[in-house]
Each structure stands twice: as structure tokens, then as C-alpha cells.
């Protein structure tokens, strides 16, 4: 077997494994979400299908495959069918670049499907391709509510993508690379520390970029269309948004894409801000080598963020659309820029040493923001006063 064929086969096997793993996680994620939401509202979640409801995801999957696949009369057949495929394809692909361990730790293979020097850029590009799936799905349905939902969704996702892209600039400045792993020259010498390597040496980036992390967290909630930003599929407001005309497996594929995006966002936050697959170093004093346990740390961190997603869903009410856009454009965007400028100024005038100062600066900014949040809310959230004679730009939506 030639070398390239072996490489190809191995990455194919890994891709299949990752995809199957993600789909299983998605299936059980729905169950865990329903059970947890139940717990939070003092009721049991699904508990009839199998012990503790463990077969509920299987039942759901089988049901959605055997349901009738409707094609609404006015729908654009081709795009209507392709949109969910695009959505799920992009969502699944985005996960493959994230490392789950050091090179060669997966039975002698690398624990990632593809490794790019521009890992973060590829990830952002792939997640934003998801917008196409959602908007085209809404448009191709040939009905009013899906179009409204699709428009709202695409406007929301591209707005928060800006916040997302800008809030990681501080990280890029600190780390000086866009790749998740350390990169090596052909002779095996270290070329650049990746995100995981940098954090293993200097400490988790959340310590130095608390404000950036807060903005990234908010943006990723909005990117994945989760509450409090799940306007595109606001059931009580515009039926189900872009999902209204979808039934059977196509609907399930959109749901799948949303949850896979959630998992990816969690993994990205874990990798960028919380040290990736490396555990806290000080624990090595208690149990030697615990910070290098393969996969355990990454999965624990992902699980934590997924829990956060569910917790927030059970806690916060949805934003109105104008509040959502105002929040994205007038708060997240300038603050992300301010965070970038703050980091840039620090790096320019204090050099490499004294990272703790940046840490204090960042936490102080975050704390100031939280303390002032009531004031900020009043400032940014006041209803638009429309005086007589003001030109009205648009009819809202």
C-alpha cells in the first residue's frame, strides 16, 4: 500500500469516527438537555423509553427517518433538499480541526482529522458557512415565516460573527499563531507554540483575556442560535422560523447542525481559553501526569460548556430583535475592539514580561462592565425615540 493511500485511509477512518461520535453526542445531548431542563423545572424529563430514557434518542432518530418527507408546493426542490445537507456538513467539518491530544497519542496516530496552520480561520470560515444552510433553507421553503426566520438568522449570525472574530484578536496577539497545536519545522524543531502549547507554558488564556472570553461566549451563544438569542426559531413569535416547512429527516438535520455547532463552540472555547486537552498543571503534584490524560480533560471541559448552554436556556428570556442587534453592534463589537486595543497597548509597552498585569487589567475591565451593566443596559437599551418628522428607515420586522 503506498504511503499516501494509507494516510488517506487513516484520515477517512478518523473522519468517520469523529462524525459518528458527534452524532451520538448530539443524540444524547438532546436527552441530557431535556432531562436537565426537567430537573431545573422540578419535573422528570423523558424517562419511559429505556432505563432513564436512554433509548429516547434512538426512538427519535428512527421516528424522524420513517416520517413522510413533505415537499411543499412552493418550495424550490433542489435548494430545499440541499440546505440541511450544507448545514450539517459544515457543522460536522468544523470540529475535525480541533486537537484532542498531543501528536501521535491516538494509537500512534494524531488525534485530529486535519491540522491547519490557519486552524482558527478555517474554523471561523466553516461555522459561517452554516449561515448559507439556514438562510437558503428559509428562502427555498417558499413561505413567509421561513423567509423571515432565515433573514433574521443570517443577520444575527453575521453580526455576532464580527464580535467573535474581533474578540479572539487579543489571543492571537498573545500567542502569535492561528494554529491550535505547536507547529514544527521539517527537522523537528519548534516553529511556533500553538494555543494548547502556549497555555501549557503560560497558563490558561482566560486569565489574560477575561473580557475577550466573555464576549466570545456571548457571540458563540448567538452564533449557535441558542437562547437568549434563538430568535430565528422563536416558536412563540414566528412559528419555527426557517424550520417551519421542514419535516422528517431534514428537520432533524437542522437540529443536528445546531447541536453539533454547540459542541464545536464548546470545544473551541475549551481549546482557546481553557487549555484544550491539557489539565491544570498544579494537579500534577497530587497525581503525576494527570494533566496529560488523553481526552479526559477536553471532554470534561466540553461537557461543562454544554451544561452552561442548557443552564442558560433554562434561565434567561429571549431578547427582542432590535435589542439583539443593538447588543451585537453597540456593545459586543466596540468592547471587542477595546479589548484588542488594550492587549495591543499592553504588548507594545510592557513587552513579554509581566503577563499578570494584563490579567488584572482584563479582569478589572470585565468586573467594571458587570458592575456597570445596569447603567450600560439603560444606555444601550433605551427604546428608540421616534420624533415627528424623523425619517423612518425601515419597518422593523
Amino acid at each position, binding site marked *: 500500500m503506498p504511503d499516501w493511500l494509507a494516510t488517506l485511509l487513516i484520515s477517512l477512518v478518523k473522519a468517520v469516527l469523529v462524525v459518528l461520535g458527534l452524532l451520538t453526542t448530539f443524540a444524547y445531548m438532546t436527552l441530557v438537555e431535556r432531562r436537565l431542563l426537567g430537573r431545573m423545572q422540578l419535573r422528570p424529563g423523558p424517562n419511559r423509553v429505556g432505563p432513564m430514557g436512554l433509548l429516547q434518542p434512538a426512538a427519535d432518530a428512527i421516528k424522524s427517518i420513517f416520517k413522510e418527507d413533505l415537499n411543499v408546493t412552493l418550495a424550490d426542490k433542489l435548494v430545499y433538499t440541499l440546505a440541511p445537507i450544507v448545514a450539517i456538513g459544515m457543522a460536522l467539518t468544523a470540529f475535525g480541526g480541533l486537537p484532542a491530544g498531543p501528536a501521535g497519542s491516538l494509537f500512534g496516530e494524531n488525534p485530529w482529522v486535519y491540522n491547519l496552520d490557519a486552524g482558527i480561520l478555517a474554523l471561523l470560515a466553516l461555522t459561517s458557512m452554516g449561515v448559507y444552510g439556514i438562510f437558503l433553507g428559509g428562502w427555498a421553503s417558499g413561505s413567509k415565516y421561513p423567509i423571515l426566520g432565515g433573514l433574521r438568522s443570517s443577520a444575527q449570525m453575521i453580526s455576532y*460573527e464580527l464580535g467573535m472574530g474581533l474578540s479572539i484578536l487579543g489571543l492571537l496577539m498573545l500567542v502569535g499563531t492561528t494554529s491550535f497545536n505547536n507547529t514544527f519545522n521539517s527537522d523537528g524543531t519548534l516553529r511556533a507554540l500553538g494555543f494548547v502549547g502556549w497555555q501549557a507554558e503560560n497558563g490558561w488564556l482566560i486569565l489574560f483575556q477575561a473580557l475577550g472570553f466573555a464576549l466570545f461566549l456571548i457571540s458563540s451563544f448567538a452564533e449557535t442560535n441558542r437562547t437568549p438569542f434563538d430568535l430565528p426559531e422563536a416558536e412563540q413569535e414566528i412559528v419555527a422560523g426557517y424550520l417551519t416547512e421542514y419535516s*422528517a429527516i431534514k428537520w432533524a438535520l437542522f437540529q443536528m447542525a445546531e447541536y453539533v455547532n454547540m459542541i464545536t463552540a464548546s470545544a473551541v472555547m475549551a481549546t482557546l481559553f481553557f487549555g484544550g486537552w491539557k489539565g491544570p498543571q498544579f494537579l500534577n503534584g497530587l497525581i503525576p501526569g494527570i494533566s496529560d490524560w488523553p481526552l479526559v480533560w477536553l471532554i470534561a471541559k466540553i461537557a461543562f460548556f454544554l451544561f452552561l448552554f442548557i443552564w442558560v436556556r433554562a434561565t434567561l428570556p429571549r431578547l427582542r430583535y432590535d435589542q439583539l442587534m443593538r447588543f451585537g453592534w453597540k456593545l459586543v463589537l466596540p468592547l471587542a475592539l477595546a479589548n484588542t486595543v488594550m492587549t495591543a497597548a499592553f504588548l507594545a509597552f510592557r513587552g513579554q514580561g509581566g503577563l499578570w498585569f494584563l490579567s488584572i487589567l482584563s479582569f478589572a475591565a470585565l468586573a467594571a462592565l458587570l458592575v456597570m451593566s445596569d447603567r450600560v443596559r439603560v444606555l444601550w437599551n433605551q427604546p428608540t425615540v421616534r420624533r415627528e418628522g424623523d425619517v423612518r428607515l425601515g419597518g422593523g420586522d
Partner: protein
Amino acid sequence: MLLVALGIGIVAVIASAILGPKRRGSRTKLMAYESGNDPEGGVGTGQRFPVHFYLVAMLFIIFDIETAFFYPLAVAYQKLVPFAFFEAITFVLLLLVGYVYILKKKVLEWA
């Protein structure tokens, strides 16, 4: 990875098309959703949308290009300081002028 991921979607759709019931839907069943009324508006009926969506997309392109310019600067930043800092500040200030302009024009007010 992309092939496998897209393949999963295609397989799922085909499987559902094979396994699902294949009844011919009546006209009412295939009608667009409109709470039981005959649908009004939708694709090709000339329904109009707020220009806001267009504006947001336009601003997104502008600011996303800004972000794209920032990435290489951010990655190479530690090798270029402190000169790069003033370069970056100048660029940010120029964009802030535009940002303040759209704020004053109330483009971002969704009334």
C-alpha cells in the same frame, strides 16, 4: 472530513426518502404554513423586506474585511511592536469614524 460530513447528510436524506411513507399529498397538505388560511406573500410574490437587513449585511462586509486585515497583524504583532501599535491604532481610528457615522445615522436602530 468534508466529504464524510456531507455524505452523512446525503445518506440520511436518501434513507428517509426510501424508508418514509410515499403518499401523494393533497393540495391542502402541501400548502405553505399560514395558520390554515390560504398563504399570502412568500417567494415570488414581491413581498418586501426592511432595508435593514441589507444595511447589516453591508456593514458586516466592511467590518469583516477590517477583521481580515487584523489577523495577520495580530499574529505578527509581537515582532512588530511598538511601531505596529500606532499603525493599528490609526486603522482603528479611521474605522471608528465610520462607526460613529453609522451610529449617528441610526442605521443600527431597529425601530
